[in-house]
C-alpha cells in the first residue's frame, strides 16, 4: 500500500480513537480489536512485533499508578482501595494508548524509513522538516558509530564512567560529538550544493494511490469515526 495513504489512515484513525469519550469502554475495546486486526493483517511474525510494542511501557506504568495517586471517591479493588476517577482514567488511557501503539507499530513494520520521508514530502509537509527527517534517517548510524568509537577510545585509556567524577569527561565528549556532527553537517551541505542542490529535495518517484487503496487505508479510520459519533449520539 502506498505510504502516504497509510500515513493519512493512521493519523485519522488515532484522532478518531482519541475523540471517543473515555466512559465508552466497550467501544474502545472494539477499536482496540480493529487495531489488532490491522496489525495481524501485516502478517509480520509476533516475535518481531512484541519488542516494538514495548514503547508503550512507560504509559502502562503511568496508567497503573493513576488509580493510587488520583483523588475523588474511593472504591475497593481486591485488597486495595483506589480512586474511582483514577481507575476509569487508567482504563481509558490503557485502551486508547494500546490502540494507538498497535496501529503505529503496524505502520512502522510495513513502511521503510525512506518511504515515510517520501510520504511526508508527498503530503506537503514543509520541505525543511522533511529534509531534517531524511537526514536523521541517514545519519543516526553515522553519529552512533562515531559515539561508539569515541567511547572505545575513551575506555581504552582507562576511563570508567561509574562515579560522578566521570561526568566532566562525558560532558566534554558529548560536546565534541556535537561539534563533529555540526562540522559534518557543513561538509554534507557543501557536497549537496556541489551537486546542484537549491533548497528543495527533488521528487524522483512521485507517489500515487488508487481509490481502492485509499478506501482500504482509511477503512479503520472510518470505523473509528462511526463509533466516535455513534457513542456521542447514543
Amino acid at each position, binding site marked *: 500500500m502506498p505510504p502516504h495513504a497509510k500515513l493519512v489512515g493512521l493519523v485519522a484513525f488515532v484522532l478518531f480513537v482519541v475523540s471517543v469519550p473515555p466512559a465508552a469502554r466497550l467501544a474502545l475495546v472494539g477499536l482496540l480489536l480493529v487495531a489488532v486486526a490491522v496489525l495481524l493483517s501485516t502478517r509480520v511474525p509476533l516475535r518481531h512485533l512484541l519488542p516494538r510494542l514495548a514503547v508503550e511501557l512507560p504509559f502502562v506504568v503511568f496508567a497503573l499508578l493513576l488509580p493510587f495517586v488520583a483523588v475523588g471517591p474511593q472504591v475497593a479493588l481486591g485488597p486495595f482501595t483506589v480512586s474511582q476517577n483514577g481507575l476509569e482514567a487508567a482504563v481509558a488511557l490503557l485502551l486508547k494508548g494500546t490502540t494507538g501503539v498497535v496501529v503505529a507499530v503496524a505502520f512502522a513494520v510495513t513502511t*521503510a*524509513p*525512506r518511504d515515510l*520521508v517520501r510520504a511526508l514530502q508527498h503530503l506537503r509537509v514543509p520541505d525543511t522538516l522533511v529534509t531534517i527527517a*531524511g*537526514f536523521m*534517517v*541517514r*545519519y543516526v*548510524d*553515522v553519529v552512533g558509530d562515531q559515539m561508539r568509537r569515541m567511547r572505545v577510545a575513551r575506555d581504552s585509556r582507562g576511563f570508567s564512567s561509574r562515579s560522578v567524577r566521570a561526568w566532566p569527561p562525558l560532558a566534554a565528549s558529548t560536546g565534541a560529538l556535537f561539534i563533529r556532527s555540526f562540522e*559534518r553537517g557543513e*561538509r*554534507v551541505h*557543501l*557536497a*549537496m*550544493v*556541489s*551537486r*546542484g*542542490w*537549491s533548497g528543495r529535495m*527533488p*521528487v*524522483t518517484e512521485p507517489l500515487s494511490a488508487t481509490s481502492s487503496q485509499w478506501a482500504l487505508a482509511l477503512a479503520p479510520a472510518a470505523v473509528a469515526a462511526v463509533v466516535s459519533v455513534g457513542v456521542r449520539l447514543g
Partner: protein
Amino acid sequence: MSVPVLDVRGVAYAYPGGHQALFGVDLHVHPGERVALLGPNGAGKTTLVLHLNGILTPGAGSVTVSGLPVTGDNLLEVRRRVGIVFQDPDDQLFMPTVRDDVAFGPANLGLRGAELDARVVEALSAVGVADLADRAPHHLSFGQRRRVAIATVLAMRPEILVLDEPSSNLDPASRRELAAILRSLDVTVLMVTHDLPYAVELCERSVVLSEGTVVADGATREVLGDATLMARHRLELPVGFSI
C-alpha cells in the same frame, strides 16, 4: 590548443577570518588529461577545489570551465560540468538508498523518470556497483561507499571529475580496483592527493601547490624526481619506493 576544461587564472583567496589561503594560482587542465594536484597539508588544495565549482568566490582572478565563467548566473551548469568527489563518502552520501543518492544530482538538473533511472544505472555500472542500488549507504563497506560517491558525481555527466584524496582509507585491493575504474572512465580528472605512488600510476601530469601558489607543473615523473623541489615542499615518496 583546445579550450581548457579548467582555466584558473590568478586566483587569490582569503578566508573571512583573514587567513590568506591562495596567492594567485594559475592552473589549466585540458580535455582527456589526468592531472594530480599535490601539496603538503595546509597548502590550499581543498580551498582551490572549492573554487572550481563556485562554492568559494575568488577575491581576485577568475575560474572558467570549458569557456563558461564561474559566476552566479552559471552556477548550476558549472556544478554539472565540475563533479567534485569529497574525501569522506559519508559526507557525500546522505540519501536513504544508493539509488536515491545517485539520482540526487541529475534530479537537481531536472531529469525524471526513465531518463533518470538510466542515468543512475549508467553511473553505478561505470564504477562496478550496479547491484548495490537498493542498499542503504551506511550498510556498505568503505570501498563501496567511495565508489558510490564517485557514481553520484558521474551521474551528472561531468566534464571534469575532481577527486579529493581518492585513495585515502582504502585497503590495497580497493585502492588498486579504484585505480582500474578511474583509468577506465572517459573523463578528465583532477586528483588531489598525498598518495604520490597513486599519482605516478594514474596521472601523466602533476601540479604542486605549496603555501597558496603553484610551485611546479610538469610530467609526474619529472616533478617527483626533483629531490630539491620535493624536500622544499614537504613531499615524500614512501620508504622503498623509487620512480
